[in-house]
C-alpha cells in the first residue's frame, strides 16, 4: 500500500473515488495541521489597518490608480453627445419608431420600462417590498427589541409634538401636503403621457405623506394608514402587476389574438396595461417611502 504512486495514479484514484476512502483518516489529519509556508509572508490585514498611515496611503493609492485608469478610458471613449455613438444603436431606433404603435404610450421611457421590459420593473417592485420587510425585521419594536431609554425618548418627543400647536411645520404641512400628494397623483396618472410615471409619482406621494406624518404625528396618520393598509396595498399591487403581466404565459408567447386595446395614443385611457401598472408601481413606491419613515421614527407602522 505504501509504494510510491505517481501523480497520474493519484489522480486516477481520486477520480475513481478510491483515494478518499483509503486515505481518509490520513488526509483529515494532514488537513488539520497548519500548512508550513515560510517562503511567503502572509499580509496581516489587521496590522495594516492598525497602521493608520500605511492604510491611508494604500487606500488613496488604490483610488488614484483606479481614477487614472478610468480617466484614460474616458479619454478614448467616443465624443459626448454625437449621434454616431455606439450606444445609439438599432434597439433605440426600434423603441423610438415602433414604440407608439406597439405600446400606445407617448412617453417612450414609460413604454419601455412598463411594456417591453415589464418583468424587470416587476423585480424592482419586489426589491422595494423586500427592503421594507427587512427594515421591519430590523427595527420593529417588539419583546426582543426594546429599550427603556428609547421608549422614554419617544414619549418625550410625542409630548413635545403635542405641546406646540401652531409651529411653522404644522401650518406649512397643512397647506403643502395636499398639493404635493395631488401633484404626485397627477404624475402617476399621466405617466404614459408626460414625464414621470410610477416611480417618480410614487416617491412624490411618499414625500407628501412623510411631511403630513411629521407635522401631525402618527395618531392622525393611523386614521387612514396602518400596517394592515400597507400590507393590503403592497401585496395587492404586486399581485395585480403579476396578473397583468403573466397573461402572456396563458395566451401563448406572442399573446396572439388576445391583443389589449391600445386606444388612441395621447388619451388618458390608452396604452393598454401601462396606466394600471403605473398606478400599481406608484402605490408600492409611496407605501415603501412612508413605511421607511414610520419604521425609522416609531418602530412600527
Amino acid at each position, binding site marked *: 500500500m505504501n509504494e510510491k504512486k505517481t501523480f497520474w495514479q493519484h489522480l486516477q484514484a481520486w477520480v475513481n473515488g478510491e483515494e478518499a476512502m483509503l486515505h481518509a483518516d490520513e488526509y483529515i489529519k494532514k488537513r488539520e495541521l497548519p500548512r508550513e509556508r515560510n517562503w511567503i509572508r502572509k499580509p496581516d490585514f489587521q496590522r495594516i489597518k492598525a497602521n493608520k498611515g500605511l492604510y491611508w496611503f494604500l487606500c488613496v493609492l488604490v483610488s488614484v490608480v483606479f481614477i487614472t485608469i478610468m480617466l484614460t478610458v474616458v479619454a478614448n471613449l467616443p465624443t459626448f453627445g454625437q449621434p454616431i455613438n455606439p*450606444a445609439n444603436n438599432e434597439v433605440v431606433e426600434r423603441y423610438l419608431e415602433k414604440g407608439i404603435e406597439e405600446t400606445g404610450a407617448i412617453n417612450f421611457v414609460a413604454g419601455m420600462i412598463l411594456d417591453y421590459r415589464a418583468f424587470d420593473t416587476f423585480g424592482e417592485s419586489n426589491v422595494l417590498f423586500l427592503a421594507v420587510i427587512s427594515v421591519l425585521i430590523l427595527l420593529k419594536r417588539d419583546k426582543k427589541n426594546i429599550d427603556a431609554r428609547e421608549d422614554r425618548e419617544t414619549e418625550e418627543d410625542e409630548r413635545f409634538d403635542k405641546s406646540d400647536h401652531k409651529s411653522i411645520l404644522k401650518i406649512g404641512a397643512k397647506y403643502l401636503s395636499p398639493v404635493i400628494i395631488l401633484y404626485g397623483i397627477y404624475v402617476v396618472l399621466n405617466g404614459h403621457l408626460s414625464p414621470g410615471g410610477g416611480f417618480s409619482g410614487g416617491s412624490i406621494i411618499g414625500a407628501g405623506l412623510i411631511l403630513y406624518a411629521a407635522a401631525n404625528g402618527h395618531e392622525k396618520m393611523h386614521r387612514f394608514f396602518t400596517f394592515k393598509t400597507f400590507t393590503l396595498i403592497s401585496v395587492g399591487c404586486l399581485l395585480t402587476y403579476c396578473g397583468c403581466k403573466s397573461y402572456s404565459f396563458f395566451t401563448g408567447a406572442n399573446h396572439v389574438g388576445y391583443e389589449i386595446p391600445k386606444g388612441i395614443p395621447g388619451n388618458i385611457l390608452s396604452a393598454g396595461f401601462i396606466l394600471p401598472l403605473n398606478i400599481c408601481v406608484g402605490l408600492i413606491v409611496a407605501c415603501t417611502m412612508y413605511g421607511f419613515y414610520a419604521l425609522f421614527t416609531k418602530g412600527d407602522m
Partner: protein
Amino acid sequence: MSHLLLNYYEAASVILFGIGFMNLLLQNNLIKKFIGLNIMDTAVYLFLAAKGYIFGRVAPILTNGVIDADYYINPVPAGLVLTGIVVSVSVTAFSLALVQRLYKHYGTLNMDEIMKLSREREGE
C-alpha cells in the same frame, strides 16, 4: 486632455466614483461611509445618462407628432436609471437600519471602536 474636456460628464462621473470609493474606504464613521456609497451610485447614473445624451435632440416624449429616431435622445439609460434611483433609496434605508441596530448594540458609530468592542466581547 482636450478629449477629457469634451467628455466632461464621463470624466466627472469617474472622479465622483473615486471620491465615493475613497469615502467608503477611509471614513471611520458608518454614516459617512453610506453617504460615500450614495455618491458612487449617482456617479454611475451620471455616466449612464451621459452616454445616452445627443446634442440638439429632445427628451423621449412625443413632441409635435414627430415619430423619428433622429429627433429624440436615447431612452434606454433613462429607463435603467429611473429604477436604479428608487432601489438605491431602499438600499440606503436598509443600511441605515443596520446602523441603528449597531448603535443600539455597541453605543458608537466608529468602525474601529466597533471592531475593538466586538473582539473584546468575543474574548469573554
